[in-house]
């Protein structure tokens, strides 16, 4: 079919149609863009509302957990835990004197008699007195204790122990090794020691 309109009119007609199509396309584009915007606004309103709700819930829960009974129970749990730890500490630190006696007994030569055994946990010092039928057995006792490095150290050598060859009265002083009797701390008057309460803890242990 032939178009008899002048070329300018034909062009104008073409662009006019194109303009209308573009307007329709842009209208659809506007609607889509506005729908996107609306979606974001709705999401914003929803999240804002949700935020307020959860904050209110947190506030309520904080009020509940901040009550005095919670604090009291936390303190009670702390006291119980501390007491149990202290009990275990004291039990673990119980001096094992029987192991010292067993070790010492193994070092006594036959026929040697110990008449006095004195020991102090804090100084770790042991003093023994006894009688021996011969001087050699006294020296043997000295050597045995001196060689027992697992339990004892620092044994002295009083010369009066070896002056008599027979029926010897002897005495020795030596030390018990560190760690055998646990840690010996001396109790102090309560008034001289500042109160050592456990530090405050934020949650139940």
């Amino acid at each position, binding site marked *: 079919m032939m178009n008899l309109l002048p070329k300018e009119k034909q062009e*104008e007609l073409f*662009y006019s149609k*194109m*303009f209308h199509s*573009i*307007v329709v396309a*842009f209208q659809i584009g506007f609607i889509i*863009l506005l729908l*996107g*915007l609306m979606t*974001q*606004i709705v*999401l*914003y309103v929803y*999240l804002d509302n949700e*935020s307020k709700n*959860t*904050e209110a*819930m*947190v506030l309520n829960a904080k009020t*509940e*957990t901040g009550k005095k009974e*919670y604090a009291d*129970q936390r303190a009670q*749990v702390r006291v*119980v835990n501390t*007491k*149990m730890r*202290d*009990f275990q*500490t*004291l*039990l673990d*630190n*119980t*001096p*094992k*004197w*029987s192991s010292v*006696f*067993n070790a010492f007994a193994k070092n006594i030569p036959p026929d040697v*008699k110990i*008449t*006095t*055994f*004195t*020991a*102090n*946990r804090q100084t770790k010092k042991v003093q023994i007195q006894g009688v021996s039928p011969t001087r050699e057995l006294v020296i043997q006792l000295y050597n045995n204790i001196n060689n027992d490095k697992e339990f004892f150290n620092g044994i002295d050598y009083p010369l009066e122990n070896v002056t008599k060859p027979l029926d010897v009265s002897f005495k020795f002083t030596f030390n018990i090794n560190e760690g055998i009797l*646990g*840690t*010996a*701390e001396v*109790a102090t008057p*309560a008034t001289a*020691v500042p109160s*050592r*309460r*456990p530090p405050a803890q934020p949650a*139940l242990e």
Partner: protein
Amino acid sequence: MNLDISSKQKILIVCIVFMLFSAFLFLYGYSILDDKNHNTALKVAESEQSYQDLLYEQVGFEQGRRDLKEIEEAEFSPNKLFPKNTTLVDNIRVLEDVANRYNLEFVILLSGTGVGDLRTPGVVSEIFSAPYSLTLTGQFRDVMSFFQTIENLQFPTHITNVQINAIVDGEVTAILNSEFFIEQ
């Protein structure tokens, strides 16, 4: 005013308007709202986490209440771990029983009220030392058995000083300085 605008120009104007509008939406509308929504979503997530933590604490509180009640009723309740000065006699009875078991003569010396005198070092709670002196007379092996037994009692007692004197025929006298641990 008569504006004679060609369709070509109209297309150009409409395109520019649409692009400006789109650019405005993307630069300001969408991005600002997107940032706000992102931040609010993070805030909600944090609040949810805090809420869950608080709920756990509430559950822990109930569990703690039950546990405390349970251990209070237990045989070895933490509240009975350390004797008070009024119940220390139970510990003395235990020592007496051990001495009797090994046929040892038993004399214990303990003075004062036992409370508030000596603070026990190395512990956090307010535990006090109640020093006592013990004299045992009997066979040496029985004295050793006594030592072994009291090292493994259900309550701690720390012997600080030992003196053993031989008497005759394997019989000895042991003088022990020791301490009980008590609470107020």
